[in-house]
């Protein structure tokens, strides 16, 4: 017990002795990790947004004009049997015209001049959740397009592909920036530990001479690194949360992008905890790097 108490007290003493260095290390780590956090937050929110948009994506399968009823029924049956399809709703020519009139009441007179109803009958298809990725959708549309009686298949393909592409880029940027800035955090904490090691070189020598094992000498520095990393990470989450709330408030005040407001969210608690653990891991890695480079003295 006294041994554990001693090791924790030594780690605390290290941080207290090098107070300024410790504070600077925590702040720098916090801002570094906050930069990673911004990308991560953007990525998570865009993915969520894309996910909910894809939920709403419906594919319009327009039928050829004057397609016999039997053919339309056969097509309906085929679509309903398709394992990629979740729901099929038939919209007749009359229903389409009715909907047009409801949605565009001021333009409805345009159709009246044409005499015959020019709007085609269609199936509104919702794909099963597992097949809503842009690639799966594209494949399905290409297949349905060739079916007999189908005039045209329509969905917001370009828009969804663009969104998927953008998410891909942000993911890459998040990984790149994450690796780069995590390395920076490791270096910052590593240097702090290095200073602590140099400041306590004599003490380390004394510990060695009285029979302390390498691990016993190292543990306080491992603890120090982990604590610095965890504090830096927790502070970075605080900074991010503050900035996030400020952004949300601005949206509310200005009234612009009011649709976005409900779609964006901060990291859930489990992710916050995981990020603090990650910070702890980075701090620990900083200590390991420092101890490997400087060593805690020779046996």
């Amino acid at each position, binding site marked *: 017990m006294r041994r554990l108490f001693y090791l924790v007290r030594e780690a605390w003493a290290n941080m207290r002795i090098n107070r300024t260095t410790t504070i600077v290390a925590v702040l720098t780590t916090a801002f570094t990790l906050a930069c990673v956090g911004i990308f991560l937050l953007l990525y998570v929110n865009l993915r969520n947004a894309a996910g909910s948009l894809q939920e709403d994506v419906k594919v319009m399968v327009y039928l050829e004009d004057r397609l016999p009823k039997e053919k339309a029924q056969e097509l309906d049956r085929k679509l309903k049997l398709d394992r990629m399809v979740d729901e099929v709703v038939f919209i007749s020519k009359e229903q389409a015209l009715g909907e047009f009139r409801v949605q565009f009441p001021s333009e409805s007179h345009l159709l009246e001049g044409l005499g015959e109803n020019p709007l085609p009958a269609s199936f509104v298809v919702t794909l099963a959740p597992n097949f809503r990725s842009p690639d799966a959708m594209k494949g399905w549309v290409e297949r349905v397009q060739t079916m007999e009686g189908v005039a045209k298949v329509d969905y917001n393909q370009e828009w969804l592909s663009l969104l998927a592409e953008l998410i891909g880029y942000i993911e890459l940027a998040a990984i790149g920036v994450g690796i780069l800035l995590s390395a920076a955090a490791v270096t910052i904490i590593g240097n702090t530990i290095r200073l602590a090691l140099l400041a306590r070189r004599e003490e380390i020598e004394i510990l060695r001479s009285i029979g302390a094992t390498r691990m016993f000498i190292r543990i306080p520095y491992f603890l120090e690194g982990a604590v610095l990393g965890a504090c830096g990470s927790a502070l970075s989450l605080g900074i991010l949360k503050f900035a996030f709330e400020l952004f949300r408030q601005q949206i509310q005040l200005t009234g612009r992008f009011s649709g976005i407001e409900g779609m964006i969210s901060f990291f859930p608690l489990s992710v916050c905890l995981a990020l603090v653990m990650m910070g702890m891991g980075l701090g620990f890695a900083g200590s390991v790097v420092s101890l490997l480079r400087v060593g805690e003295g020779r*046996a």
Partner: protein
Amino acid sequence: MDAIIQLIHVSKWHDRKAALSDVTLEIEKGEFVLLMGSSGAGKSTLLRMLIGEEQPDEGQIFVHGRNVTKLRSAEIPHLRRKVGAVFQDFRLLPKKSVFDNVALPLIVQGVSEKDIRRKVTEALRAVDVDHKKDQLPNSLSTGEQQRVCIARAIVNGPVVLLADEPTGNLDPERTREIIELFKLINARGTTVIVATHDSHVVSHANRRVITLVQGVLLSERRVGQGIGV
């Protein structure tokens, strides 16, 4: 009697200069040995080798039955727990109390709280500084600091106690006291080896004397008996 320390044809070079040259000697369990020699004679090198701080370039060293030259680095701390060391510069932690300094070897070994209290109190009593246990080392006199250093070296009951110029910073009166303390520790069964260049120590100790000159074992005698090598 059993040899607790054995050096067999040990040589060590520092920058192409022999720090120790073909030294062979045996020290029996329970002996009190004075290692004499001027500065640079190889006394400190020899002591450092006994606790695995340096390795010989040639020869073998046995301490308490273990070949020190063949120990893995992970085994060296365990050797140091059996061999207490006292230094001229005391090497005490300035921000820790006398009690905490002496307790350190026991904390390192994971000894229980109760045993730490008992053993540290005993060790401090043995060197007569138990009344200063709560003070910081820098508030003590040099003689007291050396006593604290000795208490730290004996607190876990080592089989051998090494002292490298332990009286180098002390006046003749304190020197005599420290040597008497070493004799007392030796009388309790611990093998004591004191490296010194101070002839006063030899006259106070009146024990086996090994003399080193430029890394060579020059003579071995018992004070007052004149046994040469």
